[in-house]
């Protein structure tokens, strides 16, 4: 059964130095508040896993939380580069970042395999690309092939992902810790079911979950910690609760481009009292909420 705790407690109990951590949310329901809490608690040497390590992981990488990254697309959606990610890869600042790189289809299938309790997934993918030859974090080929035992066809094989911790943001949970999310639900169900431990932050905790079209429900007994974090997806959004703060993504480009400016943002973020969505927005003339 999920325990309902504060976000700080959830992170303190579930996320440890050296862990592999998957924070998922595909442009929608990105667990930004949880990411900031991981920064505040100064976790180090994490293996970060995420299909789209957008602004969320740019913040964690710049803050020095990560040593390794498993991903498939590292950009600021609709804006451009992730400057902290690039600075880590190109200049090892604030430290080196080892990469394991996939396509979206490969990452999605790796989570499916992890959630399914099988060691690998098959797909038609990667053929002829440079990704095929790249090593995984263990130095071994991350993308291999397998022969279909029925037809003899060669297919691509990718290893299951089984993170130590999965962190997601959802719209609602009930008091028993059942978690409900809807809209673009991405790969969050698979991330939670593939992980050893999981945290779900939610917009609100309610007495009873109302059915919603297309909703995913994660029963309380597959989630470890539920924490209320209203607005916790901002600057991404929670359908039915908040709108995507496109200005923040634009503002992040300037904040993250410069190490000093980023470091000031980080100091506010880590040491400031009230979080920094407002802080970042204010720096850009009211781009926050």
């Amino acid at each position, binding site marked *: 059964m999920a325990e309902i705790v504060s976000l700080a407690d959830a992170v303190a109990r579930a996320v440890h130095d050296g862990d592999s951590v998957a924070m998922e949310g595909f442009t929608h329901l990105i667990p930004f508040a949880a990411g900031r809490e991981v920064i505040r608690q100064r976790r180090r040497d994490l293996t970060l896993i995420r299909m789209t390590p957008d602004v969320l992981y740019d913040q964690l990488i710049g803050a020095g939380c990560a040593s390794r990254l498993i991903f498939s697309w590292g950009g600021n959606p609709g804006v451009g580069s992730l400057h902290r990610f690039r600075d880590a890869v190109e200049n090892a600042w604030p430290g080196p970042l080892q990469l394991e790189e996939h396509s979206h289809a490969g990452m999605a299938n790796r989570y499916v395999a992890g959630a399914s309790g099988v060691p690998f997934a098959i797909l038609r*993918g990667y*053929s*002829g690309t440079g990704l095929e030859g790249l090593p995984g974090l263990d130095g071994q080929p991350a993308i291999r092939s397998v022969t279909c035992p029925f037809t003899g066809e060669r297919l691509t094989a990718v290893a299951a992902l089984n993170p130590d911790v999965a962190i997601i943001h959802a719209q609602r949970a009930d008091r028993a810790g059942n978690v409900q999310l809807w809209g673009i639900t*991405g790969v969050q169900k698979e991330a939670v079911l593939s992980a050893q431990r999981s945290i779900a932050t939610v917009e609100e905790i309610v007495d009873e979950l109302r059915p919603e079209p297309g909703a995913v429900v994660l029963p309380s007994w597959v989630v470890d910690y539920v924490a209320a974090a209203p607005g916790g997806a901002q600057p991404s959004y929670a*359908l039915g609760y908040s709108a995507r703060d496109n200005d923040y*993504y634009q503002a992040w480009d300037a904040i993250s481009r410069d190490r000093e400016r980023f470091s000031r943002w980080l100091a506010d973020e880590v040491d400031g009292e009230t979080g920094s969505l407002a802080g970042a927005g204010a720096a850009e003339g009211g781009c926050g909420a």
Partner: protein
Amino acid sequence: MNATPAAVSATHDPAAFTADEMMTACAARALHDGMTCFVGIGLPSAAANLARATHAPNLVLIYESGTIGAKPDRLPLSIGDGILAETADAVVSVPEIFNYWLQPGRIGIGFLGAAQIDKFGNINTTVVGPDYARPAVRLPGAGGAPEIAASCREVIVVVRQSRRSFVDRVDFVTSVGFGDGPGSRERLGLAGAGPRKVITDLGILEPDPATCELTLTGLYPGVTVADAAAKTGWQLAVSDSLEVLEPPTAAELTALRQLHSRSQ
């Protein structure tokens, strides 16, 4: 990616348009009503939405966030904006969009951008420079593109043309066009036909049926073959039936500018 409104409003000629608007209109014309189209963000999304707003109202837009049949009335900034989910015929998970919808070849057109493209239409969005481990520029990476390029029945690429982007060989093959040339796609087992058109800010290139090499088949008004050749990093082949492409119509420009203005 946006058109530059300053440049447009600086002139009093209502027929004036930017290179981006020309490119977007050109890309929109490559889409036909009733097609299914896997759309990337930026210019491809602008073009697909322009097509839907003009000649192809029944174009089915599919975004990798899992939104199938999205009908936004403005241009989303990301592939997962709320407007896409709210207007979609169906919203499915990310594993499902790739496994059930893209992989079996259900989707007609894949619409891709590129940081680098080579004469065989191979695309690089991963790293610039010869050494993957020490890149001169770290680009975002693959996203959905490798499997879009492999499995959509056809691919359209939209990319601004320059010596930096149009290279003889890409530094890294993120998404396969025609590989090393004729027969490559078949050898690799790629189900789709590969790039059908590459639409740039100068004109259109299409693969030569025999050599698979991207060949200049169309130019925008006022652009010369020499202009295009100067911005191509290989010996550019020119089609015998090179055409001058129609500038954007007033209807196209109005629809596109409305989409942009609603997106502000």
